[in-house]
């Protein structure tokens, strides 16, 4: 009996010949990459290889950097994210982001999670409270903070702050969650919690995670893309990338010969 080859998951997002420049200098060159729906894609590669730039292009955060420009196509549900029906604000409500350094606002825990909902126009207190609770549960933080929602978010530990930032991103119910090295500043226990969380989240969200940690990429992702010098060297199922890469450069990197 042969195992049936699974049909490829439909792409939630996709880039075609994406090129991103800062002034004259290209940071990402000719990258075509499919991000399958409700799967975790890990972006790996040495520092300065363009993976974070690529990630920030997906919700147009690069637009905020003076001199940055993008060529090629970025599609969300097969429609260009630069199309006129979708401005950057609308796009970012559908493609959320968690940053490398946890960056809660100097507001209460509740206000942090409710922020995206409030700027989106939700005013009803009961609905806000409900969504905040659901998001905090979704980020596995509810039990730790439910008795002190009114206290400052800055009083939380580093790992809790990062999960709060994940809860904050989830509150507006995005379809895609971009994570830029979300656990790089955390201790191993907090990191494990974040990784468990990613496993749970992929049932509902398409996740793209940038990481420097090979084991982390291997543990959490379904698909891995290796970037080097702004180019996409290789992309494939995570297991294949780590055990049987096609490219010599990929093998050198994942086995730790450079990086």
């Amino acid at each position, binding site marked *: 009996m042969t195992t049936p080859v699974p049909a490829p998951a439909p792409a939630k997002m996709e880039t075609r010949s994406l090129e991103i420049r800062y002034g004259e200098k290209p940071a990402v060159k000719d990258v075509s990459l499919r991000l399958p729906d409700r799967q975790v894609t890990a972006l790996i590669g040495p520092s300065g290889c363009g993976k974070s730039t690529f990630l920030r292009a997906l*919700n147009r*955060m690069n637009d*905020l950097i*003076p001199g940055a420009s993008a060529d090629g196509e970025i599609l969300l549900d097969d429609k260009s994210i630069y199309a006129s029906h979708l401005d950057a*604000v*609308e796009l*970012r*409500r559908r493609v*959320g*982001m968690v*940053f490398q*350094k946890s*960056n*809660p*606002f*100097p*507001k*209460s825990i509740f*206000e942090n999670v409710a*922020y*995206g909902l*409030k*700027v*989106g126009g939700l005013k009803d207190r009961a609905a806000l409270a409900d969504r905040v609770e659901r998001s905090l549960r979704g980020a596995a933080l509810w039990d730790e903070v439910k008795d002190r929602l*009114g*206290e*400052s*978010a*800055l009083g939380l530990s580093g790992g809790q702050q990062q999960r709060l*930032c994940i809860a*904050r*991103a989830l509150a*507006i119910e995005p379809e895609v969650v971009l994570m830029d090295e979300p656990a790089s500043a955390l201790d191993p226990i907090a990191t494990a919690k974040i990784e468990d969380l990613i496993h749970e989240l992929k049932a509902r969200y398409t996740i793209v995670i940038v990481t420097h940690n090979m084991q982390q990429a291997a543990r959490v992702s379904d698909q891995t893309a290796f970037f080097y010098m702004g180019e996409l060297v290789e992309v494939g199922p995570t297991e294949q990338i780590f055990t049987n890469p096609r490219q010599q450069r990929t093998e050198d990197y994942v086995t730790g010969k450079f990086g």
Partner: protein
Amino acid sequence: MSVATRKAAGAGLFAVTGAAALLVVAMLVVILVDVARGGAARLSWEFLSAAPEEGMMAGGIFPAIYGTAVMTLMMTVAVMPVGVLTAVYLHEYAPARSRVAGAVRVAINNLAGVPSIVFGLFGLGFFIQFVGGGLDRVLSEPGTVTYGKPALLWAALTLAILTLPVVIVATEEALRAVPREHRDASLALGATKSQTLVRVVFPQALPGILTGAILAVARGAGEVAPILFTGVAYFLPELPNSAWSQFMHLGYHVYVLATQSPDVEATRPLLYATVFVLLALTFALNLLAISIRTRTRRKAAAGH
């Protein structure tokens, strides 16, 4: 260098820097003690609440206190919106390397270096003769002058221009201090730029903006030169009853008492007491503003 010389050099530097720091404190103490000793005897409720009498050789200084307070308040109301909005434009909206922003910055720096008496002349020429005179031609009966003469409003506006650089620089500094990560987080949550400004940037920048207000008040309340031609009066029998009235002012009153008195000995205690009140008022304004700032900062840090 031997150990002994190194130690001697270290001790010497400690002594010199410490002496310089002490000198600063000592000067302040001498001024305060002298003013307090000379003025305390003459200070009374009557002095604070009554008008000057007998050619300023008796009575109080209430009109000058009132005039200073009202003018400073009007100045603050005028300077804060313009200063804060300018800083927001420069820091948040002007494109990097924008020529307009560059020109504005050059203007601010030069404005900060203009001697205050020049502001007085500018106020006289621009506000009183040009703006006020223009209003008179349009609104007043021919031959009468309602707006084109020294007044509270013109003095307050002149001082507002003088203190504008202080407010702009302090506000821009406060905006710069708001971490980029917080702006990014807000934008990534689908907030617009203006929502990010109002909900994330301003609350964090508020203590710094209030610092700008403190500095502006402290500077504006004590300046005399800019108001000489634009609104202050030597003596007025009544309190100013509108923005178009002239007013008395503590700083100018000190000048008047010190230079215009027919009997120096009789005026001296009054002069001391007036200086004491001017200093106390400035300190009180500073203290009030600092306490507001500390409370806001604590609130911002606590995250409520």
